[in-house]
């Protein structure tokens, strides 16, 4: 009765995944690095969603952030500098059954991979894109990145970074067919969890900029935000990322922002006096490229041979 099978519980428990199932090699980031928090959050989200590790692929480029796949127990693709997005897009294009995650950084995504960044957002292929933005090149030891604030001293600009920082949020929001833009800080575990979870649940390319601590090379980037919570603007909305009361208590600056309001999102993103945390924009109706690229997967060999023969016939003498 009730339609239950006798072996139902066995099936479930045989494939119950613990955090350990999603963990790979021992993570080797510097002590105090914000990347640990992101890695643990991704493990938790996968565990909570009970996704089979073999169906999950973590893709990355090159940089500190891009070591993440090595610390996963899933499939992974540690690619080339700047090229995580085309690789990830290709993985998903004909394998809609796979759950694809991208770990990239400010140098990887906004500098050497900037072209792919813009176009991958427009393709809107279903995947989570986590940008670990510490405003510095860490792996190669402290060079200026596109998001380094003006005046930040680095090994390539010892007198201070000369240009205003690139604003990843306005750039992202400016791309046509953009479907999900959120920003969060690595040191706020509940918001980090809820934001990445919402990104994972969204169908399309979910862009999450994670403002991430690098205690070794760019402490000045995050420290003021940690110490003075008034510099952060907490976004909340019934359709946005769930914010628990403990979080709400911490931030004095808050704004109710409807994530379907693109102009409002652009206005928030553009105002660099306060750093938004939460969901800026979501459009569930954007075109999802993998819906198109994965058409025809079910063709049988017989159908294919018929089609190729017909094509050959057109050239027949």
């Amino acid at each position, binding site marked *: 009765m009730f339609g239950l099978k006798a072996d139902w519980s066995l099936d479930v428990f045989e494939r119950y995944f613990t955090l350990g199932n999603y963990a*790979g*090699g021992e993570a080797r980031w510097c002590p105090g690095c914000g990347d640990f928090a992101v890695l643990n959050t991704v493990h938790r989200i996968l565990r909570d969603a009970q996704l*089979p*590790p*073999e*169906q999950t*692929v*973590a*893709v990355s480029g090159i940089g500190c952030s891009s070591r993440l*796949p*090595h610390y*996963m*127990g*899933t*499939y*992974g*693709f*540690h*690619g*080339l500098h700047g*090229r995580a*997005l*085309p*690789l*990830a*897009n*290709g*993985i*998903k*294009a*004909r*394998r809609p*059954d*796979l759950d694809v995650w991208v770990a990239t950084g400010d140098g990887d995504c906004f500098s050497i991979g900037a*072209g*792919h960044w*813009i*176009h991958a957002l427009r393709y809107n292929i279903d995947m989570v894109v986590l940008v670990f933005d510490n405003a510095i090149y860490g792996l190669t030891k402290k060079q200026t990145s596109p998001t380094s604030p003006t005046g930040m001293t680095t090994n390539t600009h010892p007198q201070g970074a000369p240009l205003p920082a690139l604003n990843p949020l306005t750039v992202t929001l400016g791309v046509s067919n953009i479907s999900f833009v959120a920003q969060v800080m690595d040191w706020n575990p509940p918001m980090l969890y809820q934001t990445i979870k919402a990104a994972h649940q969204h169908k399309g390319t979910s862009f999450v900029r994670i403002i991430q601590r690098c205690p070794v090379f760019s402490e000045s980037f995050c420290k003021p935000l940690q110490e003075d919570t008034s510099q952060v603007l907490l976004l909340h909305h019934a359709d946005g990322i769930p914010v628990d009361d403990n979080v709400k208590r911490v931030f004095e600056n808050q704004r109710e922002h409807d994530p379907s309001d693109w102009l409002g999102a652009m206005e928030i993103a553009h105002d660099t006096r306060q750093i938004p945390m939460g969901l800026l924009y979501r459009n569930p109706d954007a075109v999802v490229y993998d819906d*198109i*690229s*994965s*058409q*025809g*997967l*079910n*063709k049988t*060999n017989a*159908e*294919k*041979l*018929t*089609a*190729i*023969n*017909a*094509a*050959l016939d057109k*050239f*027949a*003498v």
Partner: protein
Amino acid sequence: MTKQTKHNDNVVRMEDHTSIPQRLEEHIVEIVSDSGEGAQKCGQTFGAVSGKMGNGVWTVEIIPAEIQPPARSPAGASGIRIRLGSKQVSNMGNEADLVVAFNEQVLFSRIANGAYKKGTIVLLENKWASDPQEKIREQYAAAVKEFQHHGLTVYELPMEEECLKLVSNPRRGKNMFVLGMICNIYSRDTELAKKEIASTFARKGEKVIQANHDLFDAGYSFAAEQVQYHWEIPPQDTGHSRPMMISNGNQAVGLGVMAAGMELVSMYPITPATSATHYIADVFDGVGGFVHQAEDEIAAIGFALGASFAGKTACTITSGPGMALKTEMIGLAVMAEIPLVIVDVQRGGPSTGLPTKVEQADLLASLYGAPGDAPKVIIAPATIEECFHYVILARQLAETFRIPVIVLTDANLATGVQPYPRPELKEEWLGSPVDQSPWDSEVPAYDWNEETGLSQRPIPGQRGGEYVLTGLAHTSRSKVAYDSDTNQRSMEYRSRKLAALHKTLKRPKVNGDATGDLLVVGWGSSRGAIEEAVEILRSEGKQVSSLHLHFLSPLEPGLPEIFSGFKKVMTVEINYSDRADDPLITPENRRYAQLAMVLRAQTLVDVDCWSVVYGHPLQPGMLHDAISNKLNALNN
């Protein structure tokens, strides 16, 4: 016989005609016009009709140097050459026999290219003789004189005037009139021609088809009445009863992509490769495939690599500059052992070079372009038929050897049209579906065979096979390797795969005697021209043979032994090399052609080379002279 009257000084005008076609072994026809006047469509249709009638055919497009060149300018010459014969035709041949020209200026660039000989018949549009602009009338008269000075036989014909009887804008439609003319001159099957026209204009509706049929008929009757030449070129005897088909090399690549079971073509537009994707995009739905036009060349190969990592067969199609951009990704595919097919339709380089013209100059870049040691498979089809089969071969090699395979075709194969036996499809060509069965987690992701370096790869979705692919040095379990021994050993395994493939290859066959004065070695699209030249030389009693290589990495086996049968070995290639007698050139600093360099290094034989970068395919006549010179130097 024909009666001719003088007109415009020395130009002959035909007023009578003969009715019995004269039999020919072969002929070379050119149709040359300003860009946009449809000469190529006219010639392609003529080539297709001839192929369907059973003739040997080879076509070469004449492409202007500019996008919208000014009208009536030598640089604007746009058109097509069709060489047709009773036997199989494997190259563009030497000088043209008959030319139809829409204006006189475009012929100058063809003359400068040595495309014509004494006695080449030129059927020339004569409307320029009575152009309202005096300058044009003068240019025309001067040009006609000059053509005669070159020994061309010029006939001035009122082609436009005839078209105007049917259409108001002869720029659209004169090509079909000319098609009718040459179909009459060469006794082509008019029903076949009309079927071709109908399929060309199928999307434009019945009215357009009828208008073009009328133009064709008018041209046909015009030639019957006004042109004294009526020829017949009997069909070839293929020596087999297999059905034939006719296509260009890029179409053959496209058909090969489908027959190889590929699901994804990921590309960025680049001449002369893109038309392969145009074709695939048109028919890929039938096999459920998808064309991804990426944002750049790097993304194009990255997308294909991602798909391949996920178990889907993918390829990317590009040309030289695109290859350069893809280099780092090709290195990744080598390092991480991801199967991938890369088709490089070679064009003139370096840099943007000669985008529409042929060169065989990407061999060394393909072999050695990546940083570090990046062994990969490189194969080169020599014919349009091989363009089809080599894509299938490439897919099989890529998967068996877990390696990227580069297929080097070129602009000559890409746009050349040739009849060939229709392939009989095999289901096994399509490959196996993605394996999603559980993976024995005891087996590492790179379970390298000690002897061959080969291994099976886990595919995402296979439970127990989870691994992190990386471009960093890695262990058999794909863990980042920090120890020197692992790097040394994994390099050995990746290299050894080529030795394992080499063991499976057959010794190539020498065309001609196994011993002699000179062995000419070629690769890629120049095979037809080389073999035709060698055949002529052998009929003249010369001790020359040729060898054509299809595998360039690894090389085919037995080469040192084959080379030892000859006094001298010389490659013939379409890429740059210093000539031994060039200024400043000594044996110490001479830069050899690309295959010659590879052969010298691999065989320790003092291989010579003859190569040119004229931007057009090699012609048997020029090869005949070059090889003769080499033979004379050897025997003196």
